[in-house]
């Protein structure tokens, strides 16, 4: 049996809108519209989709914060909404845009509270804290009041706080949002290590495709509250016909490059040209072909972002969404 199990789970919000002085109009919004999936122990899954697709709502139902309107939902055999506090011992949650740390107190005070609130045995607490402090480089931050930490430092602090009680599942909502490249890399490395050495199941929502590429073997795409794709990341590119961009700087302004097989000319700006090629294809032969035929100075490859992949996958959905929000 999967560790996390959703069976046609629904969450419907009733939105009341003023239409007159007193008159209200009731409308139903299906934030999550019949989602089913299972995640096994030790899996690391990316959960992606545009804003308002229902990602956070799903995560909140999995933690028991929100009660599903319909369907069946189990995490570690527990019904989250019914036994929220019991489940809390088994899960760790990191919301990228919301901290659980105590603003005015040194970082270590927040950890001490976790120690007591989660009733973590002393030895285990010590061991987990030492590991997190070591791997997330928190040693010098422990005595610093949280309000003085940078965004990246606080995120690392938050991740450590979510792991002190050895959760079986870790939910991460935008864990790398707003972080610089170095902080991002450190967070990713830590998560990978957590997953491989501790076997912690990780469910991660993100806008950053690189997070998914470097961490997740499996990706789920949600849009309009429905599961649109569930499989490998490579498959997503194939389904979405997503393209990467090759940006080439030539020696001088030249006519559009159209003679390289597999590449499509997008636009040019002086000596710089943009070529699109399928995300599933390798960039190396393409670069070689361009370099062989044209005076090449510099180049870079741009990864497709998730928004673009999904927009392409389900063309027109964006417009519909905007309408439904009106």
């Amino acid at each position, binding site marked *: 049996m999967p560790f996390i199990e959703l069976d046609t789970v629904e969450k419907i919000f009733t939105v009341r809108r003023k239409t007159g002085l007193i008159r209200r109009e009731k409308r139903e919004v299906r934030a999550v519209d019949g989602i089913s999936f299972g995640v096994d122990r030790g899996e690391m899954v990316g959960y992606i989709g545009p804003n308002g697709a229902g990602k956070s*709502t799903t995560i909140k139902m999995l933690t028991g914060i929100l009660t599903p309107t319909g369907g069946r939902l189990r995490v570690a055999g527990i019904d989250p909404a019914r036994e929220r506090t019991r489940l809390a011992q088994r899960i760790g949650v990191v919301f990228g845009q919301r901290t659980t740390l105590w603003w005015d107190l040194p970082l270590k005070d927040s950890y001490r509270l976790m120690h007591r609130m989660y009733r973590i045995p002393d030895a285990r607490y010590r061991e987990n804290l030492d590991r997190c402090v070591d791997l997330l480089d928190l040693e010098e931050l422990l005595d610093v009041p949280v309000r003085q930490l940078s965004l990246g430092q606080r995120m690392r602090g938050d991740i450590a706080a979510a792991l002190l009680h050895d959760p079986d599942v870790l939910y991460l909502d935008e864990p790398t949002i707003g972080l610089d490249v170095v902080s991002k890399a450190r967070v990713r490395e830590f998560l990978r290590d957590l997953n491989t050495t501790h076997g912690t199941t990780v469910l991660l929502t993100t806008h950053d495709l690189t997070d998914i590429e470097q961490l997740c073997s499996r990706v789920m795409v949600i849009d309009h509250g429905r599961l649109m794709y569930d499989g490998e990341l490579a498959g997503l590119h194939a389904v979405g016909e997503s393209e990467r961009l090759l940006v080439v700087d030539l020696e001088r302004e030249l006519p559009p490059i159209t003679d390289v097989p597999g590449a499509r000319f997008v636009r040019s700006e002086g000596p710089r040209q943009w070529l699109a090629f399928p995300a599933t294809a390798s960039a190396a032969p393409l670069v070689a072909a361009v370099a062989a035929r044209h005076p090449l100075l510099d180049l870079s490859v741009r990864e497709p972002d998730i928004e673009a992949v999904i927009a392409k996958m389900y063309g027109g959905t964006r417009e519909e969404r905007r309408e439904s929000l009106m």
Partner: protein
Amino acid sequence: MADSLRTYRMVAGMWIRSTMTYRASFALTVFTSFCVTFFDFVVILLMFGQVRGLGGFSFAEVALLYGLTGTSFGIADLTMGSLQRMGKRVRDGSLDTFLMRPAPLLAQVAADKFALRRFGRVAQGLMVLVWALVLLDVAWTPVKVLLLPMTVVCGAVIFAAVMVLGASTLFWMQDAAEVTNSFTYGGNTLLQYPPTIFAQELVRGVVYVVPLAFVNWLPALHILGRPAPAGMPDAAAFASPLVAAVCCAVAGLAWRAGIRSYRSTGS
């Protein structure tokens, strides 16, 4: 219950330590808090400088009413007063982080932003109560003596239950805190004065609808040897524990319903 108390202690402790990082600010708020509540009583003192009695009650008798409700409300406000600010947590979604912890939500929210300065209100209420007891000319019986602490405790519980009930509505209406305040702060002010000076409809409302009269009026009138208001039997003076229990049950049900309908916010 034990779990709630434990959680409350932990969270309140964190807030006390947070407040202590700004010591000067803390000292200042304690001072202002004490002044505000003190002047509250000065009003009654001044009034008795002009009149001999208020609705047939002497100064000592009014002081007893004031001291009882002041202490009860002070205790409820100290321990549960933060509930009125839960609306903000619901609106900005920061209640989510509380819900993810393996601890009772009510204890976490009640201890949220725990402010020791509110102890000033309890201290002031107790001072007035002691003063009233010194001045009062009452034939004390063991029953009347026991009635005093029971009244303070039950009164605090009734106020606390009203605060929880009010906070429950915040799950649906985040700006309804002022309605609750009119029952808690407003109720406290009402109960400081003898029931004889108010319109009978109002008194009936506080006896039968929102049972605030059980906080101090009914037991205090019994101690003072006066008839119970609004046609209540004399034995109603001892009904406060029962009323407090009913209030808690209602508040508990409302709180559960509130949590279940919590909608969170988009992150």
